[in-house]
């Protein structure tokens, strides 16, 4: 566990984590919004653009039946303060929100990461080219939705 993680316990369908970083928000913002820097600490990213509504993808480890693509869409951009985008993988559509708050007179940053929407997606028609994942009729999606 990261010693800087001062997270409140996450409840229900969202995950919330807080980190104290000894770097200015402007610098942290760069690491969150520059494709080359994102690839260094998060995942390789493709078509990343700071435009609301822009679609982009992260690429993670592939599994048989899933090529490892994380589909994203940019939601909110508040320079140096807030960045939010959707994060979709098979069975799951979530939203990731990064919030940056200056600390110690702007020399540090409190970074909050909230990921919400941890429920199996029941609306999506599973399968199709989007994930190369060709299973799941509505019944099974319902079943997943009813699981604890």
């Amino acid at each position, binding site marked *: 566990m990261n010693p800087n*993680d001062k997270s409140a316990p996450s409840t229900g369908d969202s995950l919330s984590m807080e980190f104290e970083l000894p770097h200015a928000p*402007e610098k942290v913002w760069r690491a969150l919004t520059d494709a080359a820097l994102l690839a260094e600490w998060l995942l390789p990213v493709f078509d990343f653009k700071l435009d609301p509504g822009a679609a982009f993808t992260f690429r993670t480890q592939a599994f048989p039946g899933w090529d490892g693509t994380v589909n994203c869409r940019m939601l909110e951009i508040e320079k140096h303060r807030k960045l939010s985008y959707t994060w979709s993988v098979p069975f799951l559509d979530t939203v990731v929100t990064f919030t940056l708050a200056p600390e110690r007179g702007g020399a540090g940053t409190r970074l909050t990461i909230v990921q919400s929407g941890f429920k199996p997606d029941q609306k999506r028609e599973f399968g199709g080219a989007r994930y190369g994942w060709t*299973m799941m009729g509505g019944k099974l999606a319902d*079943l997943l939705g009813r699981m604890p």
Partner: protein
Amino acid sequence: MVSIAEVQDRIFKALADPSRRAIFEALALRGGEAAVKDLTARFDISQPAVSQHLAALKDAGLVRGRREGRCAYYRLEPRGMKPLIDWIAHYRAFWTEHVDRLEQLLERMDT
């Protein structure tokens, strides 16, 4: 202890095969127990092949089976897909690990 990632990997692998997915889906749609011979009748594959697929699904924790005389019956394991949708634990570890890397990167960046 088996990690969440390993369990997810096992589930993804079990369901990567189209025949296994079809069998799994047939059991899901049925909602209850199905005899192996009835499942075989629905698919264009041999009974040993169906049994083999069911064994793989069972190894992944997705179905459970019982034997009665010469007949084997299978049903969905209701909690089988839970590891796959146990996202929160998975992502907590994911972000913690990656924020560690972010801190290292910030140290290397100027200003």
